[in-house]
């Protein structure tokens, strides 16, 4: 069995985790164009080698970050998302039609 180290729960069987895909910077949804947004949503680096990606420990719904080699399947490091995201991400939504500023 493959073991992954959850920053919250310690070493666990990999079957307890869900893969969340690579970590990437989100463009501002209010200012970016449809093309840029589609790139962000769909296009993948699909890197062969070291990657930084989201993982979730499903039983506790705890999301964190793992560094993993996608060729050797080695998990090099796992850590809390707070190591990368120092500030809270605010999701400002675009104004609805009819609202001021729409």
């Amino acid at each position: 069995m493959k073991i992954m180290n959850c920053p919250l729960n310690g070493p666990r069987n990999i079957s307890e985790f869900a893969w969340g895909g690579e970590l990437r910077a989100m463009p501002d949804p209010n200012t970016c164009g449809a093309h840029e947004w589609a790139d962000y949503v769909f296009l993948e680096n699909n890197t062969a080698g070291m990657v930084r990606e989201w993982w979730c420990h499903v039983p506790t719904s705890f999301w964190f970050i793992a560094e993993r080699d996608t060729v050797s399947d080695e998990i090099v490091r796992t850590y809390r998302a707070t190591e990368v995201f120092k500030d809270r991400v605010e999701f400002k939504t675009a104004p609805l039609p009819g609202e001021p500023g729409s």
Partner: protein
Amino acid sequence: MPFGLLKYGLSRKHPVERHFPLPTELKPAYDVVIIGAGGHGLAAAYYLAAYHDITNVCVIDKGYLAGGNTARNTAIIRSNYLTPDGVRFYEESLALYRTLSEELDFNILYSERGHFTLAHTDAALRTSRWRAEVNKHMGVDSELIYPDDIHRLCPSLNLSHDVRYPILGALYHPPGAIARHDAVAWGYARAATRRGVEIHTNTEVIGIHEENGRVTAVETTKGVVRCGLAMQAVAGSSGRVAKLAGFRLPIKTIPLQACVSLPLKPFLDQIVVSGSLHIYISQTPRGELVMGGSTDPYGLYSSRSTLDFKEGLLGHMLELFPFLGDVHVARQWAGMADMTPDFSPIMGLTPLDNYYIDSGWGTWGFKATPVCGRRMAELIATGRVPDILYPFRLERFAEFAQVGEKGAASVGH
């Protein structure tokens, strides 16, 4: 033919026919370079040579002939997809498959078995009904059947309610078939090389030269070859090769595993699939049970096998066929599947003018080998995207116009 066989048996030489010419040196230039000698690349080369008279073609592969997913798949062929675009496309492939042995003069062991997609929940029944209606509208033989008919058609299946997920119904697709996967690739390779196409194996593409938005040459481990145009058909390596050409794809490379049992007496004529249990099974003409499931839970560039896969698969298999409890697994393997977000392929134009792509075949591309080869060849020869390929263009993602086939492709193969 029987006479020829007799002569062969009595002769002392037992001459063996060479399927492909001996390898030669790469030429400095070709009209068309195809990257990837899997079924798709070889089929495109064949149709270019046979239907469009374009024979100055070179197919390059980093490994041995058709040793990628073409060698690893479980050979299920069907057209009972969910979207009209998907159904039309795969149905054309079935039509080509039916006559492929004659066309290539190479027996691909095409065998129509009948394909069952089992439904264990109301939601799965609803999707089956939806698929059946779309299929029938498109002229594809497909219907929703219930346990009494399932039992009549496939008596070895366990229809008891004393299981975790009782069977409520099935989408039945009589034309569902299997074929010998290696033979499909070898047949195309032989027919293509006979018409002058060159195949270079053990030659990896490591760079793509570009000038003013056009590909000028392909760099390989055996030197640089110039080309009029190029096409990539590299399945699990799609992202890596596209990166050489300077663009990214909406593709994740995720392993897909499969296994076979020791041979048993024939008892299962049909192909049985369960999307809810994440398994599928068929019996080869040699008697082995070919079994597979869904893709691995995370992306990886590796074809390693895992115990998790086998345990999960076989646990569910015993619900459908409890009497297989004592049967041994003979082999287990994996391939690298190029998965798209909408479970449909990506075919056609790319950001480079004379560079074409055939990718995103994930877990379902073997069945599409003939149609894809034929239509990609048409695109290359005429420069126009055939209508049947248009829905599968790379640009669909930027246009938010996906072709959602998850309900028909996830564990459907």
